[in-house]
Every structure is written in structure tokens, then in C-alpha cells.
């Protein structure tokens, strides 16, 4: 199977370049990550992140034939050849398919991604109804892979100012949690021309999320809450 892979090692390459591989696969190689491991067994200099190989750790996000996705759950059979692989767009490249995710995590951290509740907790669990808990479905499952934020034009232009879809999804995860008491602080923090309002509902994020989550909807709900509290 044929691949064209973005290569760049700052130690020796003046410029990034695309390298062609034609590799014999085994019948057990079903996912793109299997093929990359196979390539690495003959060219050990190819660098990428990977861990769980089942789509839950968020390590191996990359741009696959022009679309962001996880190599470990992308079926080889579904890919057009030569398979073109590039690092996630919009973030600085450290080497080959490995990008510097600092900016992405900085935005995630900026929304204070932890439950805020200053009451002394009860001896037992805090109660939450099934309906209240269901509000968190579609929010808490995010694996921080950055497929969404790095496909979002608003994030490309303002990675330092726009929180981006993953961070905003996380913000809404806490707003929606009945146990969190910081909704109004959270909304204050996002009431800003950039942090939230750079989202123009282009929906790239929804298209690419490998976990089928919908950051645009979460963003919409945050915007609704802001409108509601003004009136």
C-alpha cells in the first residue's frame, strides 16, 4: 500500500518534505496505525505519538488525506492511495507527525476544567438525578485529541485568544453539571469577543470529532445561556 508522509526533523532537515512509502501489509493490519507501525519497523526514524490503539487516549490524531482523525481507528480499506499523512494543521511541528500541543492544552486549562463547588461535601455521594446526569453525555467523553480545534479556522487564526471547540465543550461540560456552582463565573470568563465569540458555527469540529461529539451544539448552549442571563 502506498503512503506519502510529511517528514521533518529539525536536527537534520532544512525544510519539511513528503516521503513516499510502498509497504507490504499483513492481513492483520487493518487500521492506519497498524500500517504506521509496519512502516516504522523498516524506517525507525518515522516519529508519531500513539498509545491505546483503540481510540480512547487521543494520542495519534493526524491529518489523513486532508481530514483530521485518529490513525488507530481509521480503517485502511476506507483510504484512497497514496494515503497522505500530515501533522495536525495549525500547531507548530516538533518532528514528523508530532505537533506541539501546548497552545491547545493552554486553552483547555484556561476554562478551569474542574468541578467548582465550595460546599463541604456530604459523607456520601452528592445526589444527581438520571436526567441531570444525562446532560453530561456527549460532553464528558472528549479525549483531548485536538482533531476539532486544529480543523477550526477560528482557532488557526487566534490560537492564543479563542478557546476553541475542545475547550468550550469542556466549559459546557462543567456548566451543565448540577454539582458545579461556578456557572456565572464561567460565563463571565467567556464573555469576550475572542474566547467564545470567535466561533462562527462553521461545524468543521463536529465533522471531524472521532468520538462523535458536537462542540458546536455545546457552544450554542453557552451562547444561549449568555443571552438568557442578559434578558
Amino acid at each position: 500500500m502506498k503512503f506519502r508522509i510529511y517528514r521533518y526533523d529539525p536536527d537534520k532537515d532544512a525544510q519539511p518534505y513528503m516521503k513516499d512509502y510502498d509497504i507490504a501489509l499483513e492481513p492483520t493490519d487493518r487500521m492506519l496505525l497498524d500500517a504506521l507501525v509496519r512502516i516504522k519497523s523498516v524506517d525507525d526514524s518515522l516519529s508519531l505519538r500513539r498509545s491505546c490503539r483503540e481510540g480512547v487516549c487521543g494520542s495519534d490524531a493526524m491529518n489523513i488525506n486532508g481530514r483530521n482523525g485518529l490513525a488507530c481507528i481509521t480503517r485502511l480499506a476506507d483510504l484512497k492511495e497514496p494515503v497522505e499523512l500530515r501533522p495536525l494543521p495549525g500547531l507548530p511541528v516538533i518532528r514528523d507527525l508530532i505537533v506541539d500541543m501546548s497552545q491547545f492544552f493552554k486553552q483547555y486549562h484556561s476554562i478551569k476544567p474542574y468541578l467548582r463547588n465550595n460546599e463541604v461535601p456530604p459523607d456520601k455521594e452528592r445526589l444527581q438525578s438520571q436526567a441531570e446526569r444525562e446532560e453530561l453525555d456527549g460532553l464528558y467523553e472528549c479525549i483531548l485529541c485536538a482533531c476539532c480545534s486544529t480543523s477550526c479556522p477560528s482557532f488557526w487564526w487566534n490560537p492564543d485568544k479563542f478557546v476553541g471547540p475542545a475547550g468550550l465543550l469542556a466549559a459546557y461540560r462543567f456548566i451543565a453539571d448540577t454539582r458545579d456552582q461556578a456557572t456565572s463565573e464561567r460565563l463571565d470568563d467567556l464573555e469576550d469577543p475572542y474566547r467564545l465569540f470567535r466561533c462562527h458555527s462553521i461545524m468543521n469540529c463536529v465533522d471531524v470529532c472521532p468520538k462523535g461529539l458536537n462542540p458546536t451544539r455545546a457552544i450554542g448552549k453557552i451562547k444561549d445561556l449568555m443571552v438568557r442571563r442578559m434578558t
Partner: protein
Amino acid sequence: MALPTRKFDAVIVGAGGAGMRASLQLAEAGLKVAVLSKVFPTRSHTVAAQGGIGAALGNMGEDSWLWHMYDTIKGSDYLGDQDAIEFLCRMAPQAVIELEHFGMPFDRNEDGTVYQRPFGGHSQNFGERPVQRSCCAADRTGHAMLHTLYQRNVRANTLFFVEWMALDLIRDASGQVLGVTAMEMETGEVWIFHARATLFATGGAGRIYSASTNAFINTGDGLGMAARAGIPLEDMEFWQFHPTGVAGAGVLITEGVRGEGGYLLNKDGERFMERYAPTMKDLASRDVVSRAMATEIKEGRGAGKEADHILLKLDHLGLDVIEKRLPGIREIAKKFANVDPVKDPIPVVPTCHYQMGGVPTNYHGEVVAPANGNPNTVVPGFYAAGECACASVHGANRLGTNSLTDLLVFGRASGESVIRFLKENPGHKDLPVDAGDYSMQRIARLDGQTGGESVFEVGAEMRRTMQAHCGVFRFPDMLQSGVQKIKAVAERAKRTEIKDKSKTFNTARVEALELDNLIEVAVATLVSADARQESRGAHDRADFAKRDDVNWLKHTLWYRDGSRLDYKPVNLKPMTAQTFEPKVRSY
């Protein structure tokens, strides 16, 4: 060569569930702690845990920590230490409640309490009937727990060193542990982390087998580092084969599927577990179910063209239950097995899953080793928790859900022990002058190697050897030849060569260093397994079919030096409860 040095009160290696529960304890106490991880914390393999956390909350019906304790001891085939097991089961409810307070999105009951599902080997009233004890967030419990712990650490301002790989343990002449050497993956620089206390939470080494539910990064680094520093590894012959890994892919299908009412079928459509475990059936403990499946396949009742797997049926649960309680499983089955479990059964086989053994500790998370006639002498300054540690609460076979409980309970306990030690031992002891030399020699050897062995090939040979010689069923001749073979593989591993010499994010170098650790674990496993002449828990020998409490009710200790074995007694004395005397195990 003197390496650049950073100083901390404590250094924790590993940011999975155990490492981050411990770091939280230290960070919230205001200590200067560094947490090193090969990957961003939420990418640690705890993220993959599916089924739940075991704790006798009693939300679904009567339950007690004593029943949980009994189940755990029985599950361990009586090899678990009863003081540590009592501690685990007594502390479990509090640990889960705490996690809920941190924000964990547990599933709920109608009354708003945490939902609990049945799980293998967990019972009411000392084995009478299955109990609902597993606290879960759909089938993404590990993900929810790991993210919650990370979030809580963000709140506590924990200092993480992300994509730093610890290489070796630093001990002084007295044996006290003074930190680690570690490589920053992005730059290739090696630093010394000089610490008053060092805690390992490096997770498992399931990658020694070809078919494994474990992540690529589960390479037993903590075990390799400890072994190279002269610390023995305990009970390494005991590896759990999970009954339901996706055939061919290895990816896990949680026992929660059977907890929610799924069951196993052979090629004749027979629900064969009824024959092997009349009371608990498909929810018998894992060693029992895996052996039953392997027996069915061996005797020609496997499903599929090659008669090489078993079918896991769950379509009768209905779309609603599957979507609500097992959505991740449906995703995995579609992706990795090409079946939609709403309609068709999932092809599964027993797959290497969990390492019961590890770095020996007591229930305070302090690392212990034989010295001066005491098999459990504390190694000063050294702590371990989670899958890399052996407390031993899982003995010869772990119950499902008890690992996540272990991470929370012993993560916290070891953190507390570190705090106590730091109070009693102010100030850093001096580093030995040669601290760091060993790591630099290993790296220089690797970078200078010519005409050497491929890391990929040696790794593949190791995995094949383990798979063929030390699987679910073990045979004397295979174990003996396995020991010879794995020692030959270990020799080859001394001459690994990488073509990539770059300083920047050199993953070839990382993989070569990981292989060094895997090899230590593989040798320890085969040598320990070959020596244990009985069948107990996950260790099942054709030539010694029975458990032998007279000769083998004891823990194995493997030393790297000369691959020497030693043994120490099992602690049968709980903290407060009565001893559970070894009995014949039936489910």
C-alpha cells in the same frame, strides 16, 4: 559526566490513576512534587478501563466490605495478603465517594445515588449470589476517572513533566532511593530528578505478550528500573488473561457486558459456563472463565472457520441497554470485529490483560525487600502504587474492578506515606557521585551500536515466546524451553541498534529503552512460572494440576542478578477481621 539536576521533595513516575491520586495528596499538602509521564496524563492507560470500580457502597442492595474482602481473597486463590486486602476493601467506599466529590460523572440510580453493576467474582454473603458492586460511568469508567483526577490535579497546581521518560532509579550505598534519571523526549536531554521520596506508578507490562489488551506504552518501565537497581519483583508468574479480548485485535470487551446480562457461547450455541461454574456462571472469576474458554477451544468447540474463538452474545439486552450502558463496546465491536452487537455476537478469546505481580510493597505503599532476616524490610525513600506494585491485593488472580479501586486506595495511601516520610526526613541526602552514569552508559551503548539487532524483531520474538510458552495453560517442557529461549532473546536485546540518532523526539530510542524493561519482565515471568510447581489462580500447570498450600502458599521474589529466586510467606492475618483460611475454590 555530571548531569543537570532538578530538586524536588518528591518525584512520582507515572500519571495514570495511581500516580495522579498520589500526586493530588502531595500537591494539596503543599509539597514540591514533580510528576513524570511518557505521555500527556490523560493518555495513560487507565483511560481505557471500561467496567468499573469495586466498592461495597450497597446502593443496589445489601453489601459489606467484609464480603468484598472475602471475594477478593477467594479470587486471589489465597495468595493475596489479607491485611492489604482488608485495607483495600474497607477504604474502597470512601475512595469512590471522594472521586464523586471531585466531579466524576458516575452513572446514577433513580434515587440519585451512584449506579453499580454486577461483575465477575463479586458476591453477596460469601459467595451466595452475584452482587452489584461495580461503580461505573457507562463503559468508560477509566476515561471518566482519569480525566477527573487530571482535572483535580490542575486545580491543585500539580507540576507535570509531560513526555519525560524515567530511565533508572538512583540509590545510594545504603540502598536509600534518591530519585531517578529521566529523558525529555522532545530534546533528548537527560536530567537527574533528585528527590527525598520517589514513587513509582508506571502501570503494567502487558506488552510482553503478542495478544494483549494493553497500550503500546505499557512496557513495565517501573519494574525494569526497580530490577536493575537490585529490588526483587514479586509474583511475576501471575498474569491475568481476560476472557473477552476481541479475537485477532486484542482490544478489550469489558466484563461489564456479562455483568449486564451477556453470556458466552461455544460453536454449538451452548452456554458452556453453566457447566464450569453452576452458581456464578459467566460471572465466575476471570481465571476460571478464561480456562473454560480455552478448554472449549482446545476440545474443538470453538466458533468460526478455524474453531479458534468463543462468541459473546448480548443482542438480547436490547438496543436501549447497549446504548446506555455499553456504548463504547458497540463502537469497538463495530470497528475491530466488524459486528454490530445489537444483532450479532462478538468473537472473543482470552487475552493478556493484567499483571498481578510487581514491585513488592506493604499496604502503606512502601516498597519492601528482604534484608537482615526480615522479608518485608522497607526500602527507604521508595514507594509504589497501582499496577506496577504488588501489595499484594490481587494475589494469583485479580477480580475485575479491583484495579481501579487499588489505584485510588493505594495512590492515596502511598501519598500519605510519602508525606509522613518527608516530615521525618528533612533535607536531601547527597547524590552518589556516579548517579546518572548508568543511564548515560545505556544510551551511549545504544547510540554507538553497529551491526546490532532490530528493536522490532527482538520485541516480536519476545512476544511470540511469551505467548507460546507462558499462556493460559502451562506445560513443563514449554516452560523449560521458554526459559532458555527468553534468555537468548535477552542476550539479543543487549545489542539492539537504532538507525535514528536524532535528538528530537526520537521514538526509536524510546522504544529501544522500553524493550530493555519489557525483557526484564519477560524473563522474570518465565523463570518464576517455571519454578512454581502448582496450579493457582492464573498460573495453571498441566503437570501440577492442583493448588499446593503445603509447599506453595508463598510469594515469589525474582532478582535480576543471576535470575535468582527467593520466596516469602503470604500474610494470612488481616488488620481486624478473621483470617479466611484457604479453601477449595468453586463458583
